[in-house]
């Protein structure tokens, strides 16, 4: 997710372009890696040894780290107000998803609610961060 370019500062357009390009590259690599990993683990006629499965299962972390680095670079290109907006939005997201997942785990365990995979935590963090960014930014307008 990017901010409104015109409102970010003089260096914003260039930084946003670099951010979008790097994110797009990381996303393409992520899709390729996940597709390759699923093919290797589930659809190959032979069984991979456990250590190889662990390595293959960890490969999507590489593009995820690339995305994180891209985001950090983008964050550092912002002015101090927008860095604060981002920080507050992440805090809201971490709090909401943290408390939400903590609460749901009790419901899962004791009230037999449907089990939700841990893999959804990261997308939930990003989704709530996106919403929080919108609302936090409005506070400073």
């Amino acid at each position, binding site marked *: 997710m990017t901010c409104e370019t*015109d*409102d*970010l*500062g*003089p*260096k*914003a357009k260039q930084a946003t372009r670099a951010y979008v390009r790097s994110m797009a590259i990381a996303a393409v690599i992520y899709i390729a890696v996940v597709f390759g990993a699923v093919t290797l683990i589930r659809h190959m006629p032979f069984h991979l040894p456990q250590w190889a499965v662990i390595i293959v299962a960890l490969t999507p972390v590489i593009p995820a780290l690339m995305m994180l680095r891209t985001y950090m670079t983008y964050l550092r290109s912002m*002015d*101090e*107000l*927008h860095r*604060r907006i981002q920080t507050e939005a992440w805090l809201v997201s971490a709090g909401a998803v943290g408390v939400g997942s903590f609460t749901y785990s009790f419901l899962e365990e004791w009230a037999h609610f449907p089990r939700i995979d841990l893999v959804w935590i990261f997308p939930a963090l990003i989704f709530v961060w996106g919403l929080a960014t919108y609302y936090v*930014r409005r*506070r*400073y*307008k």
Partner: protein
Amino acid sequence: MKNRLKVLRAERNWSQAELADQLEVSRQSVNAIETGKYDPSLPLAFRIARVFAMPIEQIFSDEAEVSA
């Protein structure tokens, strides 16, 4: 914290965008500082003072001090 940014900017006929360019921040930052929604960091406050060629205390004032 109170500030005279809007008045000083108007005296110089600068738009928010023009001031933002000089300070190397976003227009939204200038607007948020002017409306008192955001207090700038000390380095940014010094930059603002340099742009207006004035001491910081002539631009920013402590609200508690003003109301006392």
